[in-house]
């Protein structure tokens, strides 16, 4: 019983971390329809920056992560202006290839700067846990989960409650009409992409604290992020949370009760199953046009 409860707790906490990693991706995908395969690489860049600054200054890595958000937003804005926007004008499907290219290049550049060795930020609480009887709740994971909830709520509020949010949704629904009512579509999209990138600041800091990472870690993470987003429903924040929870718990149960060897296959199995059974994801709404057609 202890094993089961502890496995569920650890699975849910891992899910919280996955939700954190996926939040910016689901935002950019859900609203802009851009599959940014460089999202994982940006998380790893932020993880390296966090580790590097922590190593030199000793400042709390998660705090560094918060401060890195504007930096990552800047990098995101630059990426959008120099690559994504230009490619998107030709054919928006090309953004997939372009962002994958950026991810591969970023992996190489990171290896040149920081080397291929594994790194991890290790503040005092990294291995500490809260104890509930015989159960433990790892502190760092809990902080990352709280961060994920705050971040997802903030993004939801931004999209629903601010003019920028409405402008973003309008631009995404119909560029021409949005421009007609006075929205600068290009600038709005760049802002959206930058906000998505800003989330990688804290996500990267969490990665640097929770796991050891190398420049190529982004391949593993983008796989999980795609799984979370597809599972939960494209562009749905609640869905991202749910998908992340399901992935975390499924991996944990597989590792504890089936075979640890199969745990890393869980994301891909889930992607295939959900695409076959419910392609719009668990909470993904069907596009209104689909409803009309049906």
């Amino acid at each position: 019983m202890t094993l089961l409860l502890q496995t569920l707790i650890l699975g849910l906490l891992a899910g919280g971390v996955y939700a954190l990693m996926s939040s910016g991706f689901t935002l950019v995908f859900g609203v802009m329809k851009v599959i940014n395969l460089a999202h994982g690489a940006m998380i790893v860049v932020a993880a390296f920056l966090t580790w590097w600054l922590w190593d030199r200054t000793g400042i709390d890595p998660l705090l560094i992560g918060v401060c890195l958000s504007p930096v990552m937003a800047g990098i995101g804005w630059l990426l959008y202006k120099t690559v994504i926007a230009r490619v998107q004008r030709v054919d928006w499907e090309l953004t997939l290839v372009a962002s994958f290219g950026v991810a591969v290049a970023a992996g190489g550049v990171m290896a040149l700067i920081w080397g291929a060795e594994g790194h991890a930020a290790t503040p005092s609480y990294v291995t500490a846990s809260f104890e509930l009887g015989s159960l433990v709740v790892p502190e760092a994971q809990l902080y990352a989960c709280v961060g994920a909830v705050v971040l997802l709520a903030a993004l939801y509020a931004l999209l629903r409650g601010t003019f920028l949010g409405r402008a973003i949704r309008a631009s995404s629904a119909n560029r021409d009409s949005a421009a007609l009512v006075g929205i600068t579509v290009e600038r709005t999209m760049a802002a959206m992409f930058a906000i998505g990138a800003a989330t990688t600041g804290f996500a990267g800091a969490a990665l640097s604290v929770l796991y050891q990472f190398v420049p190529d870690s982004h391949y593993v993470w983008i796989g999980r992020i795609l799984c979370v987003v597809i599972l939960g429903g494209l562009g749905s924040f609640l869905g991202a949370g749910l998908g992340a929870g399901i992935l975390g718990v499924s991996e944990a149960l597989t590792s504890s009760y089936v075979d640890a060897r199969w745990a890393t296959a869980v994301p891909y199995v889930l992607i295939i199953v959900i695409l076959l059974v419910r392609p719009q994801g668990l909470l993904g709404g069907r596009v209104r046009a689909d409803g009309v057609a049906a």
Partner: protein
Amino acid sequence: MSRVARPRTTSHRTRRVLGAAVAVALLASGCGLSGSSDAEDSPNDPIVIGMSLPLSGPAADRAKPGMEGYQYWADEVNANGGLLGRTVELKVLDDGFDQQTAISDYNRLISQDKVDLLLGTFSSDLNLAVAPVAERHKYLYIQPSGGADEIFARDFNYLFFAQPATTQRLPNQFVKVIEEMPSASRPKTVALVQQDDPNTTQAAEIFADRLGALGVTTVYDQTYAPDTSNFDTIANAIKQADPDVVISGAVTGDGVSLVRSLQKVGFSPEMFYQENAPTSPTYAQAIGEANTEGIFTPLAYSTETDFAGNKDFVAGYAKKYGGPPDEDAANSYTAGQVLAAAVEAVGKLDQAAMAAWLHENTVATIVGPLSWDAAGRPQGELLLAQYQSGTLKVVAPETGANADILHPKPNWQ
């Protein structure tokens, strides 16, 4: 009408693109990306030595010092007049820790680039795949790492291992330590947790058998995939099994992740033995220096032994790369030493003659004198080391030991 049609198209395209994204992610997670160095291929002079290393991907942290060890060896050979009077040039490809890429890289080095000599790659996983390529083309293949017996069980003629022993003998010293403990304080239970790699899984089987014979029961035995990043649930299951000894068959960064997860779930065994990871230069920082205390690891090499050339190698390497050589750097250098000895002894680049010479002779290296059986298995013993006060001390065998064993391992700090 068009307003209805447009989003519908987008939705369909979205799914199509999504499918492509999934395919790309699957591909990306399954295979590394290869690239090549700028080494020039020239058939006459200098002697070109080809190799493909996992310079990117999950084993990149092992390959970097490995590459430096090879480079240091080549530079030293060239500074001393080269091999057979010709300078040595390395042609290095990157296999991204992917078996198929490694196979095609070595095929390319042999068939297309027509390199003069080969040197081996890292890990049992890659060497298992590459050794048959060299054998088929009748190229001498000296591998610096990868001691799984599966590799040598095929009785290849051109294959040689540049460490003192294969995985078959890896558990010897640690099992002996447990065997020699008084029966009252001898551990009763063991947990085995290892990466899915021919070397670590074979070692785990041997440990289970030999410790079982000593009355130590295996209470947990799990193998995990190489790209596992979350070890919390594994650590939790180990905690629930509550073993006296944990034997971790790590390959690289997975070792650090497991230790950190054991710390998180609050489980510290009496004895902790881990393969490969503890010799990584970033290990102590990643798990916290105080937490290294008492951790055992097998060593193929130590900077402190007096074998011929070792002190010069340690000093020269530290001068060139700013720190002492780790095991991987030393193993590459050793592979180079073995290759050079065969070339110089035969006096020409005759692969069959060099292989025959190595089967008959002993080569003095920085890991001690090496000789091989008919399948290329070295006939020496590995060392057992333990972290004490932040450094790895050799604790067994007695002849090479420079410290007593610390038991039990202190709790995590």
